[in-house]
């Protein structure tokens, strides 16, 4: 009885791990697509021409394409492992690039929301790694 219940709940728990970063990236994509002129401004990016606004929107389009691939994995049990692999690759690389940037650009943890971004990136990377391992084990059994 317990086994059936946990078996039924398990994919939803694992799906939740994938849902969290997918949701965050969806918000990022939405901001760049709908308000490209203001989305990067808090970080200090200046958009001086109409072309820059369109290019900023295209950044949102690339993020959106990635995000929709993740959503396709969130809703399919068969693609859950691939989704975790993609999210792991994305959050892990974002984290590494951010840390390298701290060393070469002069950005510090104290600036803006960098502490939050690093903490969230680390958390998502761990959750997606756990999700990937759990999904791999489930497939073997």
């Amino acid at each position: 009885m317990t086994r059936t219940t946990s078996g039924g709940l398990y994919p939803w728990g694992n799906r939740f791990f994938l849902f969290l970063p997918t949701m965050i990236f969806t918000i990022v994509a939405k901001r760049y697509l709908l308000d490209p002129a203001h989305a990067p401004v808090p970080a200090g990016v200046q958009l001086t021409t109409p072309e820059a606004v369109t290019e900023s929107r295209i950044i949102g389009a690339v993020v959106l394409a990635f995000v929709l691939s993740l959503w396709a994995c969130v809703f399919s049990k068969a693609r859950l492992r691939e989704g975790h692999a993609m999210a792991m690759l994305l959050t892990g690389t974002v984290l590494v690039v951010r840390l390298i940037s701290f060393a070469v650009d002069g950005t510090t943890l104290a600036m803006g929301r960098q502490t939050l971004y690093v903490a969230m990136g680390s958390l998502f990377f761990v959750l997606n790694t756990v999700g990937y391992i759990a999904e791999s084990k489930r497939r073997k059994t």
Partner: protein
Amino acid sequence: MKENSASTAGFWGGAPWISRLLMLPPIFILAMIGLRLLSNPSGAVGEDMHLTLDTARAVTHMRVFGVFPAGYAVVLVFCLVAKERLRMGLSLIAFLMLTALVVRLYGISVDGTLFQDEKGLVLAEIVFFGLATVGVALETLRRRRGS
């Protein structure tokens, strides 16, 4: 008759290589965009995107965005290496190109960007979308035939 069926079998045997060939240019372009943003964000967005990065945080912000095209390229290479993932890879390319195209055309209509300035990119996105769609159709037919 036998020769005809042998040449058809030969075509479908080589179809995965046609699909791979169709995937290579977008993978290369995405990898180049990603690598440029990752290695030199100020130069990349200044020359190509007309964005100005005023602070260290802005440079980091843009460097992080380089992960998306680079990550997309890695996922596509993952699809490229296995025959059974080719259709997924081509679908991802078609989807990305269509999204970029729709957003670019929307951007041209509402941001005041001149179509003349974006003509080359619009054309490239249409071509890559068309080629990826042909690839998806080819892979679907190949799967149906079981080759």
